[in-house]
């Protein structure tokens, strides 16, 4: 409980109260992937984004993060301005994890923590929570697939933010860590966070589900 108090402390001023997708449609490479996608996510709720390969889950997550343009519809973050919400209110962890293989895990985690507005203390706590302490001095290229994914996920804890956008977060994790990360997700929800995760297997927390039909 002590850990929770520090990790999931006040989310700052830019707290997203609600994520609202209304009539979203995305076009990639001239093809309309989907249209009319609606979703409402409040604090404490999670949503599993499912659908066959190529249906547009990743694209939708990127659109919520503002990295891909919507063909139609809109994304609203409660009554927050969307530039502010995207800048300070959400985390995005995709397939491409943004880790430089030639730098050490410590350098990368420290940088991304700073970038997200976290402190040095947060770096340590995040590393502890994901059992990375032993690995921090290895270069990223030497990490195993699961270790590397844990390093990417540790950013979620290092700087607390309300909305987590996760793209297949569990896939290279072993059974123990799927459960372990499930616990971390549950804590995040409990403390008022939101999770939107593209997955092929069920999420390890209670969640709504949004299926995209390609």
């Amino acid at each position: 409980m002590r850990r929770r108090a520090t990790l999931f402390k006040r989310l700052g001023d830019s707290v997203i109260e609600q994520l609202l997708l209304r009539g979203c449609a995305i076009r990639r490479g001239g093809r309309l992937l989907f249209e009319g996608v609606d979703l409402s996510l409040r604090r404490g709720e999670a949503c599993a984004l499912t659908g066959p390969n190529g249906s547009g889950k990743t694209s939708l997550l990127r659109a919520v993060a503002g990295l891909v343009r919507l063909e139609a519809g809109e994304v609203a973050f409660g009554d927050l301005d969307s530039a502010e919400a995207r800048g300070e209110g959400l985390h995005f962890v995709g397939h491409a994890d943004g880790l430089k293989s030639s730098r050490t895990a410590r350098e990368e985690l420290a940088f991304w923590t700073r970038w997200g507005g976290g402190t040095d203390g947060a770096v340590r706590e995040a590393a502890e929570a994901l059992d990375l302490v032993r690995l921090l001095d290895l270069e990223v290229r030497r990490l195993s697939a699961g270790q590397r994914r844990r390093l990417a996920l540790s950013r979620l804890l290092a700087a607390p933010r309300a909305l987590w956008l996760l793209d297949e977060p569990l896939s290279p994790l072993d059974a123990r860590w799927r459960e372990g990360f499930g616990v971390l997700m549950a804590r995040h929800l409990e403390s008022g966070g939101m999770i939107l995760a593209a997955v092929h297997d069920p999420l390890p927390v209670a969640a709504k589900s949004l299926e995209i039909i390609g």
Partner: protein
Amino acid sequence: MSRLSALLVRETALAWGRGGGPLVTVGFYAGVATLLPLAIGPEPERLAAIAPGAAWVALALASLLSLDRLFERDYEDGALDLLTLSPTPLELTCFLKCLGQWLATGAPLALAAPIAAIALGAKPDLAPLIFACALLGGLAFAFTGGIGAALSLGARRGGLLTAVIVLPLFVPPVIFGGGALDAFASGLPWSSGLALLGAYAAMSVAIGPLAMAAACRNALS
């Protein structure tokens, strides 16, 4: 502020890695400056005449060499996505990226340039001017070069496409700097060349980040 300084440190470290630290940077410079006389022949007069210019071209080319991956790595491994998702405007991020690039490679090269020129036979009193030109020129190269690097993101032909975009943008500073050096060597007034170089550098620092940020957003979407 801590966010920005962390970015600057990271970019400098990455550029240092890409560029390989001072030893490597200066080694490269020395190598280029040695190749030229070897190719041209060792007559001292001929060499001394072209020495400052050669050092200057080597600087442009060295900048070019270390530039093309300024954005590409971040683009391919997803770091650019995360850099965009921040309250820091992307323009400022791009500015700091280029600044880091310049600190890690431009500044050491500027220190090496006068030495290389004198080794090639230039008069020692040219050294301060060469240093000033290299410092300003490096800034211009880093910021205009960044534009090329950002524009060729996601293009089918990375690499030399950057070079083709960047070289026309490198030409004006090369002219200005080369003109100033030439004028100084012949005892003519040289300050206008340096002033133009400074103006060009200032303009690239001002405009470059805008263009880079627009190009990055475009590549990501």
